[in-house]
């Protein structure tokens, strides 16, 4: 079993996690034998009944069957922590329900927004890295920390558009958030590769500037290219380059305790159960070296 302590003096291999959103018990049972953590996606496990939005009880039951030996973490996409007006209270309701049922080790969200003035934009966008964004996000992070009493982590999202004028650098912005709130970070090796491909991000300089101590979790995934862009559709196995970058990040991040192989449930027919299990074994082998 891999370590989750994050002890730097005797740094062990990070633990392995993967995504699960329900309704595929065979996959759930198989991956449960291969990972140490299960990453639950509150949005993907939910259902709207008229006006209320709830985590599907049958999915929680499925997870309860396989969960006992596993650590559980929650990773959302629907909070919209960066919306200028308000975040998504419906997402917090889902998170409340998960926390009521399971002892989650931590929860996390993307540093972006999906809703503007109550209107869903259909995708997730990164925040402009300005003082105004910083103040907004930090206030909301503190509110989450007060509410759930377990660590909260933020993950950077890919960027397709150029920076707005007078932006913080990517690393400066994350450093400010973690310094002001004490929250943790998730780095996504594949997202960093997307930013390098699409916008020329200097990943080594980014990692050199970033305070790596708050990095608790690392995501690896594979995606696709479309019309000259590298897109963060988590639809394939991680490339060798992504794994190499992941190892570089593991070496730099003293408190990184979990590596999560992420895939979209929509990609399961393409990846296949065998393919997902092979990928988990491959990632485990890579991070255990």
């Amino acid at each position, binding site marked *: 079993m891999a370590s989750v302590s994050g002890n730097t003096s005797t740094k062990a291999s990070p633990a392995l996690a993967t995504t699960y959103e329900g309704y595929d018990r065979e996959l759930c049972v198989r991956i449960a034998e291969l990972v140490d953590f299960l990453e639950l996606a509150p*949005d993907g496990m*939910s*259902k*709207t*009944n*008229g006006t209320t*939005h709830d985590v599907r009880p049958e999915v929680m039951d499925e997870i309860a069957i396989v969960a006992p030996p596993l650590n559980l973490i929650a990773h959302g996409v*629907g909070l919209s922590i960066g*919306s*200028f*007006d308000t975040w*998504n209270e*419906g997402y917090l309701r889902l998170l409340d329900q998960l926390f009521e049922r399971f002892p989650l080790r931590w929860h996390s969200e993307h540093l972006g*927004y*999906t*809703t*503007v*003035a*109550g*209107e*869903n*934009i*259909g*995708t997730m*966008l990164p*925040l*402009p890295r*300005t003082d*105004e*964004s910083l103040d*907004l996000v930090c206030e909301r992070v503190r509110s989450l920390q007060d509410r759930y009493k377990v660590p909260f982590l933020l993950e950077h999202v890919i960027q*397709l*558009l*150029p920076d*707005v*004028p007078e932006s913080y650098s990517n690393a400066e912005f994350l450093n400010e958030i973690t310094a002001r709130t004490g929250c943790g970070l998730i780095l996504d090796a594949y997202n960093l590769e997307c930013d390098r491909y*699409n916008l020329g991000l200097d990943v080594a300089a980014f990692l050199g500037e970033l305070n790596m101590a708050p990095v608790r979790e690392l995501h690896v995934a594979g995606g696709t290219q*479309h*019309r*000259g*862009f590298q*897109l963060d559709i988590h639809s394939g196995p991680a490339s060798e380059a992504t794994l190499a970058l992941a190892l570089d990040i593991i070496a730099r991040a003293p408190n990184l305790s979990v590596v999560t192989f992420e895939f979209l449930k*929509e990609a399961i027919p393409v990846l296949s159960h065998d393919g997902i299990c092979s990928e988990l074994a491959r990632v485990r082998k890579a991070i255990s070296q």
Partner: protein
Amino acid sequence: MTSLEKHQRGLLALIKHRAPDADDAWLRQISGSKQMEMLAEIALWWRLYQIKEQCRYTARLLRRLRRYEQTVKAFFEANTTSPYIEKLSRDFLTSLTVHPDALISAVATFELACLQIPLSSQRWRIVWDREPTCVLLALDQEAAIPPPETDCHYVMQVGADVPGRAMCTRCANFFPGSF
């Protein structure tokens, strides 16, 4: 208006192909860029995927008629679409219940009624210009959709209180070709 609000409202407008704030230099710079078009395409792609999964018959019919992408795009750009797939689907189907094409309207209303059965005691009355089971089977099996019947129409009742949840009656047209 704060700059963050201006920024986010501007990007929403660009993704949905609406007019953004013309005073903002950064928004002007990215408007029409290939990056912006990629974002709009990604947003539309997700809506196409979600609706295809949730509104199976209506999506198949629209695809068969080669009107799927343009219909979803128009709906997405003109409406405040929900991030929740169930609500997105209901809203999309509702928008098609008044579609001028009688077959699109009937299929969308039928599918909406089926989605609503667990949530509502409403009874739906749907008029078809051709035998509905044959239409639904054709969509399921990718077979040819039967043509409209000129001498009759079909009145379908759908609801939780309807025996078998749905029943259909064939009615003769008083005037051929009308219903």
